[in-house]
């Protein structure tokens, strides 16, 4: 049970960073932390005690107690999506820096209401 709670704790740490930090880059890092924590959680879902990798290495081999391969495939997809979002966030951060000459979100406040 402990690893699951550790994941949730990691999510909370990331959320804390997203909510309280003023530097855009730190917000992005906090956000990545949330993402990794959830991916870790998802990967843990497929965990099996004394499981073996779901790979057939020899002809005609049949073994039981494979770990569930699906969560890993899903996590891989989620990682790819996370890569795309992180890249886009960084690109946005760079453009923001070029425009505003700062990474501090308290100084980037033109939109209100």
């Amino acid at each position, binding site marked *: 049970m402990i690893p699951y709670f550790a994941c949730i704790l990691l999510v909370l740490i990331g959320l804390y960073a997203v909510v309280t930090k003023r530097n855009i880059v730190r917000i992005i890092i906090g956000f990545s932390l949330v993402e990794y924590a959830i991916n870790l959680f998802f990967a843990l879902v497929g965990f099996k005690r004394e499981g073996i990798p779901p*790979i*057939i*290495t*020899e*002809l005609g081999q049949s073994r039981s107690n494979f770990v569930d391969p699906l969560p890993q495939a899903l996590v*891989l997809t989620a990682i*790819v999506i996370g890569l795309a979002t992180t*890249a886009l966030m*960084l*690109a946005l951060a*760079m*453009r923001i820096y*070029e425009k505003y000459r700062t990474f501090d979100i308290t100084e980037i406040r033109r939109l209100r209401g």
Partner: protein
Amino acid sequence: MRGMSPVVQVIARLLAGLLFLFGTYIVMHGHLTPGGGFAGGVLVAAAFILMSLAFGSVEHTERNSYTLSSVVESLGGVLFVCLALAGYVAVAYFFQNAATYGTGTPLKLISGGMILPANIAIGIKVGAGLFAVFLALGASRFVMKD
């Protein structure tokens, strides 16, 4: 971007090709061993990123590489959609494995029907796409201006 010291440059020249080869190996054996199009594509992109980090580049070549890699990325995407469509046209199901109806032979490179070509398409797309992302982030001043 500025280049790096001769130590990095020489080692990059030695290793980049091998990195590319290893990435291709991962892509090609996606249906036999762990890995596949995405993991291999990342390695392929790493080979190019290594070279351009070590040697640096001027805006002109960056722009050319960006154009080339975005075109190659689109081609990879089109190839992947075409492969998926092949199943649709041939046997009524999108992503149906159109080439073979068997389950593939373990440890045989050319088996498993369309999984290998699909992995290659993904490898091309990811490799070119990541390199384009790298260039866009490293040199966004001109890339975004278009």
